[in-house]
């Protein structure tokens, strides 16, 4: 059991850093950079997994040259390529919007990372959440800062003065305003069952029954709306290669494109974390492990990787919708279903109270 003792030791120091009030919040924020780094690493893992698994699902090999048989160093090669490529800002582009868009997208991703809890530790009777910042409105805050990403795509599309990019930006706004609503309503349904807007308390409310079982309809609606929100494949009309070249990122090149691309994956990873935390029970483990003690952070990460795999699987399996179909699904199917689920979860929430 040495591993668990080492884990407890590490977690003890993490708690001292993140959760005690002896340390100034400044220090917590600066050390939170490590968490950003970890989630950055998670996004890199997702890019690699996506290329490898898409290759397998489409009967090809995927990356297999750089770094041994499995191409594990492919991403480093790509990074070197992006760093050494020429950075072009088109002459007709609105320079400030063009430069600002990737920054806004990345900042939005970083801000979402700030409230994600990874575990809840009980030390000497006190509860400590392993998170950079624990707010009592963290789920509302997540909704708010994820909305910033819409501005990023519109800034990029409008700022680059390209017809493809502008069309993609319009599509993106039309899609987002339809899908923010079912997303918000299902998040509220979860909060209704947990009687709280704090993600830590939402996860704790799932210790007996996960919300995917308590409200399966809510999970389906939330997952579809999340796919649209992060622009994954059945809903990636904003960068449909066959119609719009590369959508709102058409004029971006080199590392500036890399930043925008990376911000998208950051949103996908954070989205997987949110699904894990509010529907899949977060750090509540499965009963199959019996008395074996598995630290909560491993559960969170394992479930998050499962959700990422689901994203990749859906990308390989489904074709892309037309834009008018997407708008129809959002307004005419998901919103009524989300409201129905809200009624259901309110009734259950009253019974459980």
């Amino acid at each position: 059991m040495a591993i668990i003792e080492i884990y407890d030791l590490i977690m003890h120091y993490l708690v001292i850093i993140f959760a005690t009030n002896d340390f100034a919040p400044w220090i917590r924020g600066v050390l939170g950079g490590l968490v950003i780094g970890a989630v950055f690493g998670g996004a890199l893992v997702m890019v690699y997994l996506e290329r490898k698994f898409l290759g397998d699902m489409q009967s090809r090999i995927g990356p297999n040259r750089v770094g041994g048989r499995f191409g594990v160093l492919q991403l480093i090669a790509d990074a070197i390529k992006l760093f050494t490529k020429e950075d072009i800002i088109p002459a007709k582009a609105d320079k400030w919007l063009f430069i600002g868009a990737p920054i806004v997208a990345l900042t939005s991703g970083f801000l979402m990372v700030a409230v994600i809890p990874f575990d809840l530790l009980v030390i000497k009777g006190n509860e400590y959440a392993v998170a950079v910042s624990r707010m009592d409105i963290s789920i509302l805050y997540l909704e708010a800062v994820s909305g910033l990403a819409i501005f990023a795509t519109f800034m990029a599309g409008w700022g680059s003065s390209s017809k493809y990019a502008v069309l993609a930006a319009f599509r993106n706004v039309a899609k987002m305003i339809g899908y923010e609503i079912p997303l918000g309503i299902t998040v509220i349904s979860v909060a209704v069952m947990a009687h709280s807007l704090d993600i830590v308390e939402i996860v704790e409310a799932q210790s007996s029954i996960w919300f995917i079982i308590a409200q399966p309809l809510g999970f389906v609606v939330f997952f579809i709306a999340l796919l649209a929100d992060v622009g994954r494949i059945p809903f990636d009309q904003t960068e449909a290669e066959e119609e719009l070249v590369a959508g709102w990122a058409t004029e971006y090149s080199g590392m500036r494109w890399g930043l925008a691309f990376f911000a998208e994956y950051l949103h996908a990873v954070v989205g997987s974390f949110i699904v894990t935390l509010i529907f899949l029970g977060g750090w509540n483990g499965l009963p199959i492990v019996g008395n074996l003690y598995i630290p909560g952070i491993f559960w969170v990460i394992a479930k998050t990787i499962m959700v990422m795999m689901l994203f990749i699987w859906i990308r390989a399996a489904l074709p892309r919708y037309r834009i008018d179909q997407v708008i129809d699904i959002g307004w005419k199917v998901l919103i009524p279903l989300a409201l129905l689920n809200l009624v259901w979860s309110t009734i259950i929430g009253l019974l459980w109270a």
Partner: protein
Amino acid sequence: MAEIIDNFIPVAIFIVFGLVIPLAIMFIVKQISPRSKNPIKFTTYESGSVPTGSANMMFNVEYYAYAILFVLFDVELLFLYPWVTVYVNDSVTTPGFTTGFSILAMVLFMIVVLLGLVYEWKKGVLEWVR
């Protein structure tokens, strides 16, 4: 109050990270990437031909119907957020309320919002191509 501000100080630092990291990366790129001054490179991409007209086009005025509906629903969502924390024990947490008052109020409010949605639906506002 001080505790709430403490919770948001890491957020402020993360905003600084979000500004500094992309700028630092772009600074490094500027040092090591090649540069050329060929003006053809700085034209807008339009499938290889010379771009015509302006890209800052106008959009359909019917687009606004979606935007107005969105505002309607978003305000509704904002009312729901504080409601979820009090709806069970509103007579305890909110002086002057009788038990179940907030649920009744929310049901009435939702009926009004739903009537609006049904009306827009019947009017055909939710059709992408009209």
